[in-house]
């Protein structure tokens, strides 16, 4: 049978990884793209710039707690931040479906502008295309971002050592579940809204700790489980999560229990995973907690355990694997 792209190829799991390895890396993987960074670090005279891009196709484009416009700003800003860059400039490209209400576009662009202001980035170039009705789902957006690398931050998996602390900046899974609930008409009350927001404030809290900060990433597609598995893959260390340490809001818990989807596999859009030397953990935590977007920050685990695996202690005292999600997240039947 002819091979075709399935939705799971874009789900952030194993199928996505294979597609990117076979089709993208095989063609473009010789330069800075080799290690598939969410943002590239590029030399420019004496400085280094961080360059990233992301496309946004979220459905519905208005969701509880945000819309596609602010998401498009935060998504790229956050990729620049976790690569150790202070975001400066953004491009903004719109693909709009014929018949899209102008009022909706205005709301989305107002949010885009507000989000850019909040992050201190300027939108410096852009593009607008309109496609025939049926050729896109309302509106798609793309942003690219350029930031200046913060001096003194050296980030990368290779710097991680056993004993380092694994920190998450707040409760997980809110964005993914809020969108899922909105898309499928699951009534969750007022408790469940997207966490979408900027990470540049958190970045500034981490900067003073210099080389004690080893790694930062925003757990978007594939969630915390995907990020942690990427970190340990092929490395000589693992990550051990503490039982019940991963912060989850009540709203997320209800939906996750109901649908049988683990919050560890669900996207965040305003959270950061940070790995640092144990001696810096308390300082970074209090820095994070001084900001509204980091008030739920906590240590969720430690680097260590069996090489290449992410494990979590269960209530019976047995450790279980936290594996990479395999594809599209599907609710269970009963």
């Amino acid at each position: 049978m002819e091979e075709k792209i399935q939705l799971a190829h874009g789900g952030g799991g194993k199928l996505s990884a294979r597609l990117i390895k076979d089709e993208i890396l095989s063609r473009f993987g010789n330069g800075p793209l080799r290690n598939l960074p969410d943002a590239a670090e590029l030399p420019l005279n004496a400085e280094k710039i961080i360059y990233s891009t992301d496309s946004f196709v979220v459905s519905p484009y208005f969701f509880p707690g945000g819309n596609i416009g602010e998401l498009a700003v935060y998504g790229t800003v956050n990729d620049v931040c976790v690569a150790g860059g202070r975001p400066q400039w953004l491009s903004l490209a719109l693909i709009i479906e014929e018949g899209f209400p102008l009022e909706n576009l205005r709301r989305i662009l107002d949010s885009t502008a507000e989000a850019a202001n909040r992050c201190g980035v300027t939108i410096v170039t852009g593009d607008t295309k309109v496609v025939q009705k049926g050729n896109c789902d309302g509106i798609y957006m793309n942003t690219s971002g350029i930031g200046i690398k913060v001096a003194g931050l050296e980030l990368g998996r290779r710097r991680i050592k056993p004993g380092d602390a694994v920190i998450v900046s707040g409760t997980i899974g809110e964005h993914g579940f809020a969108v899922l609930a909105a898309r499928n008409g699951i009534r969750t009350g007022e408790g469940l809204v997207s966490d979408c927001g900027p990470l540049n404030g958190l970045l500034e809290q981490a900067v003073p700790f210099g080389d004690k900060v080893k790694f930062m990433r925003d757990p978007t597609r594939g969630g915390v489980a995907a990020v942690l598995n990427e970190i340990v893959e092929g490395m000589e260390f693992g990550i051990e999560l503490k039982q019940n340490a991963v912060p989850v809001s009540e709203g997320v818990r209800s939906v996750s229990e109901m649908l049988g989807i683990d919050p560890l596999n669900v996207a965040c859009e305003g959270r950061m995973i940070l790995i640092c030397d144990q001696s810096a953990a308390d300082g970074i935590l209090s820095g994070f907690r001084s900001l509204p977007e980091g008030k739920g920050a906590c240590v969720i685990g430690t680097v260590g355990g069996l090489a290449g695996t992410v494990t979590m202690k269960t209530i019976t005292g047995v450790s279980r694997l936290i594996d990479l999600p395999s594809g599209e997240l599907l609710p269970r039947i009963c």
Partner: protein
Amino acid sequence: MKYVDEFRNSDVAAALLREIAKLASSLDKAVNIMEVCGSHTMAIARHGIREALPANINLISGPGCPVCVTEAGYIDAAIELGRQGVVPATFGDMLNVPGSKSSLAKFRAEGGRVEICYSPDSAVELAEKAPNTEIVFLAVGFETTVGPAVSVIDSAINKSLGNLSILTAFKQIMPALEALSSDPEIRIDAFLCPAHVSAIIGADAYKPFAEKRRIPCVIAGFEPVDILYGIIGILKQVQAGTATVENQYSRVVKPEGNVRARNFINTYLETADAWWRGIGIIPQSGLSVRQEFAGYDAAARFNVQIQRGDPDKRCQCGNVLKGKIRPDQCGMFAKVCTPENPVGPCMVSSEGTCSAYFKYGRVIG
């Protein structure tokens, strides 16, 4: 979260495990406990319960995942309906279940339309919004799911929807317990009975079976503490040599069950033989749409024939479902057969035994 946190308390779990160890050492034999429900299988794997038990207490996963026991021919029929322009509406779990040649996920990737429902109500909404499109809800499940699935027929009648029907592959638990306990190849000392199925059929439904077969039946909830407590109940019965029905999930399960739901189901459905993937026909273990509602039965409405039989002979799901082997004893497990490329249905559903083993069961330490 109420009714969850109390039942996931590690101190309580440790105390229960100590009691289990004590009981197990007082028994000088191995005890085989079958958990029949997929949600139990999932919770056991997720919380590492199997590994935490003494060596002589074996948990065997039974055929209680409705998706897993749905035959390949049913998937083929759903795809065929899709090819004819009918829109299959289904719970997400069914998407990756292999038919004999394809799956609904692959059919969708080829441009076919398949609607994922989080509730059977979504199928009703689809039919209301598109009166010229035939919607078929894939009605799969045990007693828990039967009521909501049948409400599709009820809504279609009340809302005069002429474009909505269901394709049934319902299963009933009691005939399956009978079949499993009379299979000479399987030795089951006790059943850990499902939580939500029991809420419908009632605790009393197990009584004639427990007495006739002399097998202890303990109904337990889905939280780890529930399950450990259920195992204690079973071991106490094994120790005392009794075989009774014990309802430890009384916060949800009543002795008589949910009479209203059963009456509702009986209005539209009648008992029928059913084919279980990997097991074969179990007499009177299914439910089909009554003749007078044949217009809402997709099989009758579109003259669908469901082919019986299991396509992939290498697949050991049948033996896994019957508890004869563990998933890791199948030659294809985690090598050829993985969640993203499942050969058998037990790997497909998130509640499937193989999927649970793959996801949580490969335990360290």
